[in-house]
């Protein structure tokens, strides 16, 4: 046992004395994480199309319809595939099953809550102000306009209702898509806001005309455009609409979180495949034969070296976890992250062992290790969001530690607990067992 420790410490010492290894293990992933965090500001990004979105519109009024139409606008077309639904529980189930990215729920009283004055006018005069365009308005008689002004004035003194919520029920696995849908709705609310502010300006003039009517009637306004938003007035630009994003159990997507973990896993792979390569390098340096003629069992030599590579990898990812956390990245429950890191490091070391056991030289192992790391990272979604990859690629990538790493940290980052984590850790450990069995076969062949 003591010899295993001696071998492992020697590995760690050699790895941390190698400037090239330090650059690969720590400096590069940290710099990349910083760059990605700065570029994306922590959220959003990616080239997406036809994001599946469900819409449950309980309001059916003109205002909410305007919001729905935003999804069909030129700028959004092709980005979102909208499906209108009526059964809320069925729709939520589809989100839970990751079938769709988001369910948008517009409440029944949306129009009345957003524009209570318009609701009053509709109730008393029978006119839907939000459905009128400028031509419709100009066609009204002065008496009708004054009547509208009277009804409008009635609602002015009423207590403002609470903000109305549009709920986005989002899948934790579609976090970028959720961010996009949220942005589209925000844009729709802004458009709605411009329209309403124009109307409010006109109606305010009408109210004034109504108050003064009979004594010294002021000319009824006719040339104020509907879209004349008083944008300089911050108070007036705010609509009482609140967007509530509900991600079952967790946080919304952050590029910084995602890239911190995925880049750490990529560079862990580089480090451990490089560590595995040293097994062949030691043969070339002559130190492996020398080790094998010490009174130490050959298996102990192998296990000791592997333990050293695992220890090096653990130190590497722990430093990266700490450093990226200082930059604001969230990896998940700090009690579970070490467990996840340990499993992933052991799994990744298996790849290093496997590559080294079948390669002929250290140079060959280095080249294969780099190729395996890069291809594995690409298909597992380390460079771009995993959830945007085709399902068959996502499934295929489960032969890589990177894919399991992203699955594990996505779960942790979205608030997953130990119970949620166990199946993923089990999957990673199963893969690890396969790697080590194949590596042992390779080592037996190579060193017999």
């Amino acid at each position: 046992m003591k010899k295993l420790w001696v071998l492992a410490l020697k590995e760690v010492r050699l790895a941390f004395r190698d400037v090239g290894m330090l650059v690969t293990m720590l400096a590069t992933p940290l710099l990349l994480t910083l760059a990605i965090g700065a570029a994306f500001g922590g959220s959003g990004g990616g080239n997406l199309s036809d994001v599946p979105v469900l819409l449950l519109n309980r309001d059916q009024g003109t205002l909410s319809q305007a919001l729905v139409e935003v999804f069909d606008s030129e700028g959004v077309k092709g980005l979102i595939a909208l499906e209108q639904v009526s059964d809320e529980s069925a729709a939520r189930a589809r989100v839970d099953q990751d079938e769709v990215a988001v369910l948008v729920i517009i409440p029944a009283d949306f129009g009345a809550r957003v524009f209570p004055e318009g609701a009053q006018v509709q109730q008393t005069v029978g006119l839907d102000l939000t459905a009128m365009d400028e031509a419709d308005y100009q066609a009204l008689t002065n008496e009708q306009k004054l009547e509208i002004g009277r009804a409008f004035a009635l609602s002015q003194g009423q207590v403002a209702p609470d903000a109305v919520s549009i709920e986005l029920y989002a899948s934790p696995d579609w976090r970028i898509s959720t961010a996009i849908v949220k942005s589209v709705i925000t844009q729709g609310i802004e458009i709605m806001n411009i329209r309403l502010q124009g109307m409010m300006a006109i109606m305010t003039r009408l109210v004034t005309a109504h108050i003064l009517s009979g004594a010294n009637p002021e000319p009824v306004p006719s040339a104020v455009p509907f879209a004349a938003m008083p944008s300089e007035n911050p108070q007036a630009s705010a609509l009482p609409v609140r967007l509530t994003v509900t991600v079952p159990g967790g946080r919304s997507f952050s590029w910084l979180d995602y890239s911190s973990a995925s880049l750490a896993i990529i560079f862990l792979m580089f480090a451990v495949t490089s560590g595995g390569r040293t097994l062949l390098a030691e043969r070339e340096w002559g130190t492996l034969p020398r080790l094998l003629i010490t009174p130490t069992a050959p298996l102990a030599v192998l296990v000791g070296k592997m333990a050293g590579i695992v220890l090096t990898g653990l130190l590497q990812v722990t430093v990266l976890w700490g450093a990226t956390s200082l930059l604001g990245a969230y990896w998940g429950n700090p009690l579970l992250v070490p467990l996840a890191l340990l499993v992933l490091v052991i799994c990744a070391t298996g790849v290093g062992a496997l590559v080294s056991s079948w390669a002929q030289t250290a140079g060959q192992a280095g080249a294969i290790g780099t190729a395996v790391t890069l291809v594995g990272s690409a298909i597992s979604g380390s460079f771009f969001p995993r959830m945007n990859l085709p399902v068959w690629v996502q499934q295929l990538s489960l032969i890589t530690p990177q894919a399991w790493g992203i699955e594990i940290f996505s779960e942790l980052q979205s608030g997953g607990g130990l119970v949620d984590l166990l199946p993923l850790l089990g999957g990673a450990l199963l893969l690890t067992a396969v790697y080590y069995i194949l590596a042992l076969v390779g080592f037996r062949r190579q060193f017999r």
Partner: protein
Amino acid sequence: MALVEVNNLVKRYTSAGPNAVDAVSFEIHAGEVFSLLGPNGAGKTTTISMISTLLTPTAGNVVVDGHDVQREPMAVREVIGVAPQDLALYHDLSAEENLRFWGEMRGLGGAELKREIAEKLALMDLSDRAKARVKTFSGGMKRRLNLAVGLLGNPRLVMLDEPTVAIDPQSRRYILDYVKRMNADGATVLYTTHYMEEAQELSHRIGIMDQGRLIALGTLEELTRQVGEHETLVLKLHQEGGGAALAEALTGCEDVFEASASNGEVTLNVDSAQAALPLALAKAGDLGLSIRTVDIREPNLETVFLHLTGRALRD
């Protein structure tokens, strides 16, 4: 009493290939320096690798201190120390860290290991560079450290595989003197070399290997007796390419037992150098060759090797 018994040892790397070691048998007695002498590729390192448990013999067996290398490799490893031909050190560790690591791998620890490290560093004149990383060392210093690692724990059998290859004369002298001192202190040494002078200076007994076979075995006196009272006449030519023709011309001439050529030199195994020299000069003249230097040597291992193989040891 034999510390090492090598019996009909054979090693073949590929089934269709030649035997790298071919039916080699010898014994090494406790307390002696036994040298395996031979040119590169003779099978010396392969033999050492089998004795040290690193390679599995194709046939035959080796017993070290009563333990069969195949059946009880761990017991064998407990009694041996090896300084391999290629430097086997961690260049990013210091001399002291290397010694500590290899000492711990030999099962040493605590005060004993500390004492061993200090002693070996002092013996190899490396104490002042103990904390320096090996990659900053000269070739000779690395060789000395490589040897020091092999001596950790004062093993009963020390195997030194070409320990003086590619080093400066000062370090070479240091190593040879140390081997003698170590042997005087009771260590048994298996020493491989292709330098005849080293084998002559150090060894109680010498085994000469060529092409995987042990072609002669004995003390220096016993071996040189095999070539009788013959002398060696070495002619260095001005024309590098003419050696082979002169050697061929002299082969079969009276009093010339063997003739070989290498690097512009012709080596003759002759009954009397004085008698053979005029003949050699005449033949050289006939071939249009001119002789730069003439060297007459007493019978030595070079002569023995030439006598046994028809080739010079350096070929």
